[in-house]
């Protein structure tokens, strides 16, 4: 099953490489990974999406917790949560394709953030499957470039991941 694991860790040199190294060392899968500092500059928040059986996910959270730099770990998919990913996608846009892209972007609540006579760049945020659906709808032939941030997420309601 797919899991979204959120990690709060010391904003120290080497901390990220320890987390990434752990995944390759123990043969854990990484689908996507994002990391950035938080409002507290001594802490970074990392989100990793991974696939694995319950046993593997249990090992991942335990092994992450063992890292000295890691302050807290939560598997967001265990409870109600919100997830978002940002995508920017550069598309060939000439002739009637321009209208077509515009319409599809509107349906997906995307924004066109860069325009040239021959291209559109669309920005889209949402759950990863929504981004996938947009790509399907557009069709691969018109796609020039795709960049995705990977998933970030948090729990719904009062529940927070903090010190």
């Amino acid at each position, binding site marked *: 099953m797919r899991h979204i694991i959120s990690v709060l860790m010391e904003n120290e040199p080497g901390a990220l*490489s*320890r987390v990434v190294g752990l995944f390759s060392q123990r043969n854990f899968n990484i689908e996507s990974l994002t990391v950035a500092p938080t409002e507290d500059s001594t802490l970074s928040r990392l989100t990793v999406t991974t696939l694995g059986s319950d046993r593997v996910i249990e090992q991942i959270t335990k092994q992450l917790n*063992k890292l*000295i730099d890691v302050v807290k770990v939560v598997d967001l998919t265990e409870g109600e949560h919100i997830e978002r990913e940002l995508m920017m996608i550069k598309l060939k846009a000439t002739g009637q394709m321009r209208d077509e892209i515009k319409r599809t972007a509107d349906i997906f609540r995307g924004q066109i953030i860069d325009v040239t006579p021959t291209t559109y760049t669309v920005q889209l945020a949402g759950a990863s499957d929504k981004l996938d659906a947009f790509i399907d709808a557009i069709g691969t032939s018109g796609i020039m470039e795709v960049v995705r941030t990977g998933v970030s997420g948090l729990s719904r309601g009062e529940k927070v991941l903090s010190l």
Partner: protein
Amino acid sequence: MELLSGAEMVVRALKDEGVEYIYGYPGGALLHIYDALFQQEDVKHILVRHEQAATHMADAYARATGKAGVSLVTSGPGATNAVTGIATAYMDSIPMVVITGQVMSHLIGEDAFQETDMIGVSRPVVKHSFSVQNPEDIPGIIKKAFHIAESGRPGPVVVDIPKDMTTPTERYPYEYPASVKLRSYNPVSRGHTGQIKKAMDMVLSAKRPVIYSGGGIVMGDASNELTELAQMLNVPVTNTLMGLGGYPGTDRQFVGMLGMHGSYEANMVMHHADLILAVGARFDDRVTNALDKFCPTAKIIHVDIDPAAISKTIKADVPIVGPAKSVLSEMVSIVKASKKQIDKEALDAWWQQIEEWRTRHGGRFRTDDSELMKPQQVIEMLSKVTNGDAYVCSDVGQHQMFAAQYYKFNKPNRWINSGGLGTMGFGLPAAMGVKLNFPDADVACVTGEGSIQMNIQELSTISQYDIPVKVICLNNQSLGMVRQWQDMNYESRHSQSYMKSLPDFIKLVEAYGHVGMKVDKYEDLEAAMQEAFSLKDRMVFMDIAVDPFEHVYPMQVPRGSMRDMWLTKTERT
């Protein structure tokens, strides 16, 4: 406050941490630190002949005392030479602080002379690592390094120090912190009482219980608590390779080591148990054999300080995260206070069954199929001559398994071997590390003619510091363990498993100023060994010719259950 240079701080912090010996080898990046070492007498430095040996010496000191050993190696090749030793400690959860020199900060990343990214290279084999960025941080980092290495599930910590952090002319206020607090690291100090109660209820209801204990008992100083609990309940105890000595080896309740080369009775007990109380052990693949066939009738209670060790390979029915010592003593109190008693009748029947298994095999081996003496006989003799009281530091191979099977360890911290990584070359430096710190104890290195040559250069260190260890070399003229697998799985095609042109070990050790003894006949063994151990202040190398065709048995059948074993070359369970 006192002003010290970074180099002086390193040495002072070690002194303030109570370190007596460090093991190391100098080099460019460490010159400031070596100069600071020269100008004091509290921290004594042992100059090895290869950095791997420095780490094994520090590691063995830790295994014998429970305190972190320290080694000091230079950047680049010094650091990479230390990696095997760090990995060895990591796999067996041994506390160690390894200080590595590094090139000047401004050169890092430029492929400078003797630059290696040691933080990167060591990352998968350390508990944690630090890279010093400001000289003022040195005391705090060293304090943290010891704290992390020794607490929780112990392990090696690397402290990488760029040369410009130790410049002698730049001085900073020095204060060694009395304690450390890390917001992201808080090892548990006791187990969950509810879980412990539940576990004891299960133990008291069991009909065929067994205690399976490992290195966590030895490093967690929980041997007394384990022994008390086991004896109150009258349940059988088996130890892992790492746990030997955690329960007295000559006690009736001890059924021997378990696993791949475990005793017949230990593996049978495990397979037929209805309850396994695992303490400080990790269900590793050399113990469990095939996971899907592991102990089909047993409920499992797993006590470990490391939550990640629990249910990693075998699912625990009752997980208990906590230090072995405190959890076991809570268990003892619960049993003492409990009205419920363990089922005596069931237990009697269980013991009767165990005694039958014992008589069936009981560690017997043949002596009549070879002119040469048997390696097992040598270990039995070692056990006799040293009254089962020596520190036995082993290398890796058949001799290691024979030592584990036939030396009867009655005390913890006496059996010192590389269990997890299986590092050939560990034995001699390990014995040196122990002997240096326990000068009055008998310290033996049990080795093979293959393993000993992996760190033989340390004979020179032994001369320099007078470290009179006794080397018991079971010379079977082959890489015996490899050969055994080739015999069993490759129709005896002995690909690269025997060594032509072995050195004359006697002449070799004599060249270093030590005593060599060659023993070919069993009749001569006892007297020779007595003599070796009576030479208290000499290093003695016993080159003992043993049967090259001997195999280690029992041996679990690959992909079988615990009870599927070869008992001899021709007999299977």
